[in-house]
């Protein structure tokens, strides 16, 4: 199975990548683990690829001032092995695909592709991550909850690229966790839930909860968050908060396929939200 024909350009810097893309109307190629498969299936035929995979400075994780910056070319394997990121990230990255996929797939490529069944959009939404984007007109920062706008759609225009994702650094009073119901073959999320909770003793003083997999794009869950805020967390209050996810999901938007019907996914949503909250609370 070959991809359709394309012209190939290799960029040495972000500026060169943006210029090449503009000149040739191409698409960016990072690790290629989302793009190459869809090209082989002829679902995508960009005509021109601008390879950003060798740009210096976009690969790696750096920590500063209460946050950690993950370069766009950082692989899932590097995130899985990181010890300076909130627990939810290595946890989620370690279940993406398989070791070979994690060795090549990149954080930036993953979120730019914005597959609804992907884990990182849900994780970054829970973490209230800031997506750093570079374009012809300069750089800008987009909140994760505004970045994922639909099925394979992001807030980026064609001439922009992800350069980094900024997340809160690990904090003793904040617990994070990801829980997913996965497709047993591909490991893609049928339902994925992320939670970031700040606790004082047993009381929840801040909550950020997200859900993905069953919707065109990952979303924050304000009803769940409101039900957690100020509560003393125990089995009962966590279950009640998780059940509120029904208010955050627009039923007509829930997607079904041969692996899981829309009804089944909807029923599983509170189950996995509950697991994510309980795990995050236990880590806070």
């Amino acid at each position, binding site marked *: 199975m*070959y991809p359709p024909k394309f012209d*190939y350009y290799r960029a040495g810097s972000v500026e060169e990548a943006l210029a090449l893309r503009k000149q040739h109307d191409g698409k960016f190629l990072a690790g290629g683990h989302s793009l*190459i498969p869809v090209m082989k299936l002829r679902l995508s035929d960009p005509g021109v690829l601008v390879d950003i995979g060798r740009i210096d400075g976009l690969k790696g994780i750096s920590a500063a001032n209460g946050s950690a910056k993950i370069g766009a070319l950082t692989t899932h394997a590097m995130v899985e092995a990181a010890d300076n990121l909130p627990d939810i990230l290595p946890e989620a990255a370690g279940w993406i*695909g*398989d070791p*070979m*996929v994690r060795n*090549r797939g990149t954080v930036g490529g993953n979120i730019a592709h914005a597959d609804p069944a992907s884990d990182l959009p849900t994780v970054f939404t829970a973490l209230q991550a800031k997506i750093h984007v570079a374009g012809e007109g300069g750089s800008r920062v987009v909140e994760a909850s505004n970045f994922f706008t639909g099925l394979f759609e992001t807030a980026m225009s064609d001439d922009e690229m992800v350069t980094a994702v900024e997340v809160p650094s690990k904090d003793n009073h904040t617990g994070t966790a990801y829980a997913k119901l996965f497709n047993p073959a*591909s490991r893609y999320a049928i339902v994925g839930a992320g939670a970031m909770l700040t606790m004082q003793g047993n009381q929840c003083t801040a909550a950020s909860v997200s859900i993905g997999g069953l919707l065109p794009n990952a979303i924050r869950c304000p009803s769940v968050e409101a039900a957690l805020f100020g509560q003393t967390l125990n089995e009962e209050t966590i279950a009640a908060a998780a059940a509120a996810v029904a208010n955050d999901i627009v039923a007509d938007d829930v997607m079904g396929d041969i692996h899981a019907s829309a009804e089944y996914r909807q029923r599983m949503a509170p189950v996995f939200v509950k697991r994510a909250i309980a795990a995050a609370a236990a880590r806070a």
Partner: protein
Amino acid sequence: MQITITVNGTTHTRDVEPRTLLVDFLRDHLGLTGTNIGCDTSQCGACTIHMDSQSVKSCTVLAVQADGADLTTIEGLANGSLHPMQQAFWDNHGLQCGYCTPGMIMSATKLVEGNPGISEAEIRHGLEGNICRCTGYQNIVKAVQQAAGEMGGD
């Protein structure tokens, strides 16, 4: 486009179409047919090779992305005698039809690096990207565990 790739210690320079997949470059351009193509959709792992010391699925890497890289394929694993992982697959009959074997062995050698006491659960999780359609996993896991001990973390 001209690319230069080192495979099993030999450096090759070739002209390729940008859309050439690394697995096709190995098989059709270099005649190294030990690396198999299974699902062709990044799932089965039959095409696993080592690229700059990491296991990768060569059906999902473009040859141009591997320009300048150092690769090892199943043909390059034995050094005079069988690699301990190859020997362990032989000893434990870690195969049925054998189609997944090159990819299994290439994945497994990276999986056990630095982990001589690797557990059965770790092996099963680590081999998730390699599918044996004969379902011969029992002996594959046994083989990997034997080799891990013999390799002592190398």
